[in-house]
């Protein structure tokens, strides 16, 4: 009987030892998992560092291209772009243009225009509205001016003076419209390149995922899909919660002929985010409506 009690004691001791061993195994497995996760995240950081180095190397080469272009043009384009990106109120631009007068305001607006559609579709829509407002404002000014002239004509000026002024106004408006056309043409040819360079510089300074995404969009518009893929990935690495970076990455993949991969990427993101926009894009790609 004593032997049996002794045996039972041994069994309790054995059970305790086994439980401890199980706990140790679980703890060890947990630590291993944590270590693996830590290593994995470190690898990501190293990759990011590597990418940054590439960007720095690219940035060093690119300023040489900028110097080839006329300085004045660069100034004209760069300043409004930066102003535009910094400002959040479109109304400010409109007010500034009012202050600067007819020619000046036209210059600013026209210089911005070719750039905006490349930047952002949302901002484009906002810009279109603001453009309409500017147009309306200009029209209003002109109408007012015309009205004013008419008022003057009827009140203070003679018929010959009135015809001279009208002629002068027509001439000025012709010159202005000609200048506008010229600027438009110049900007259309050179603004995208400048914009990309500017944005690259900006991104290098700020490391803002938004800038990387804008670059991706710019490249996408230029049909440089491998570049747009790369920048979308850069944006995504910094902020993976942004729908647009996923969308841009997938769209670039699609354009590069990797439809299945694009769908796979979006589906995996959709599982996490449940974003309706993502769902819509998946459907679009699948039905080849993109």
């Amino acid at each position, binding site marked *: 009987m004593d032997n049996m009690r002794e045996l039972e004691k*041994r069994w309790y001791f*054995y059970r305790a030892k086994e439980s401890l061993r199980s706990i140790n195994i679980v703890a060890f497995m947990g630590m291993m998992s944590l270590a693996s996760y830590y290593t994995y995240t470190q690898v990501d950081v190293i990759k990011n560092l590597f990418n940054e180095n590439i960007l720095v190397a690219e940035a060093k080469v690119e300023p040489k291209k900028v110097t080839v272009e006329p300085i004045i043009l660069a100034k004209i384009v760069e300043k409004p772009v930066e102003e535009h990106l910094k400002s959040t109120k479109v109304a400010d631009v409109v007010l500034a243009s009012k202050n600067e007068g007819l020619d000046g305001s036209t210059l600013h607006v026209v210089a911005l225009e070719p750039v905006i559609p490349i930047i952002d579709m949302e901002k484009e829509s906002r810009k279109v509205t603001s453009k309409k407002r500017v147009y309306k404002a200009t029209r209003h000014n002109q109408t007012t001016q015309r009205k004013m002239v008419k008022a003057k004509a009827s009140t203070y000026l003679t018929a010959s003076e009135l015809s001279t002024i009208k002629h002068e106004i027509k001439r000025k408006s012709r010159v202005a419209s000609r200048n506008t056309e010229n600027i438009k043409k110049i900007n259309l040819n050179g603004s995208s390149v400048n914009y990309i360079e500017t944005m690259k510089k900006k991104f290098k300074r700020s490391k803002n995922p938004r800038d990387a995404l804008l670059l991706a969009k710019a490249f996408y518009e230029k049909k440089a899909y491998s570049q747009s893929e790369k920048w979308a990935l850069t944006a995504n690495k910094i902020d993976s919660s942004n729908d647009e970076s996923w969308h841009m990455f997938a769209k670039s993949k699609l354009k590069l002929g990797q439809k299945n991969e694009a769908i796979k990427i979006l589906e995996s993101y959709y599982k996490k985010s449940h974003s309706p926009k993502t769902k819509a894009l998946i459907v679009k790609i699948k039905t080849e409506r993109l």
Partner: protein
Amino acid sequence: MTSRFENVKNIFIDSVERNNYVELESAQHNYKLLEKSLDKPLKMILLFGKPGTGKSMLLNKLYHNLKESREIHYFDAPILSEKEFLRRVYEAITDKAVPNELRVNFDGLLRFCQKLKGEREIVFLLDECQLYSEALMEKIRLLSDTRVIKFVITLHKTENEDIIAKQHFKTRIWEVIELSNASEDDLYIYIQKKLIQKGFVEISNMIKKKHIRFIYTYTYGNFRESNKFLYTLFDIYEYFDENRPHKVSTEKLSKKFLEMTALKLGYIDG
């Protein structure tokens, strides 16, 4: 008050009784092989295997099955004295008792056997032959050469006995039947059959495959080891049934008792 587990544990006491024999597929195959070998003109048949693989049991079954139909003699315990061995062989052949003051002359026995050639065929079953001396084994070999006496011998499979089997009887052993441990499934059938044969159906229902797996982990399907394990297990059951019956369930085997058995037998360290 006696526990119901007392009788259960007793069926696992290691013995070579014929009514304890459990028909297993592998054992049945070996038995048929052995029976067929006896009909062939072989001088010696070797049953070979590790201790506890059922050699003695097989020999015992063969003896009881054939004792009515042919001249067969079973020496279940080894006879270490040469004088005693020759006397027992002579008595078995002649069916006459040899007086104590006389001894059997080996040459005389050999000549006697040679005279019987073609008239009789006598089978001797010798268990635990690894205990016989080399000189006696040599005499057994010479007796088998007369083709009147046929020997079925069992040997434990160890390094030394392997040498005996390979060198000493190399030319005379024409049939070697090697027995091995039971598989997990065989062990399950063995235990179930053993319990059901003795009427312990309820206990047999308690034993599941996972319990057999546990037992097999330590006994490797060795019948002797498995019997020892089950004997100890039901011994523990008996204790708890008598002293703390609330701890005993008849639904399934207790993991605690299984582990206690393994601890008691030294399979695991406590």
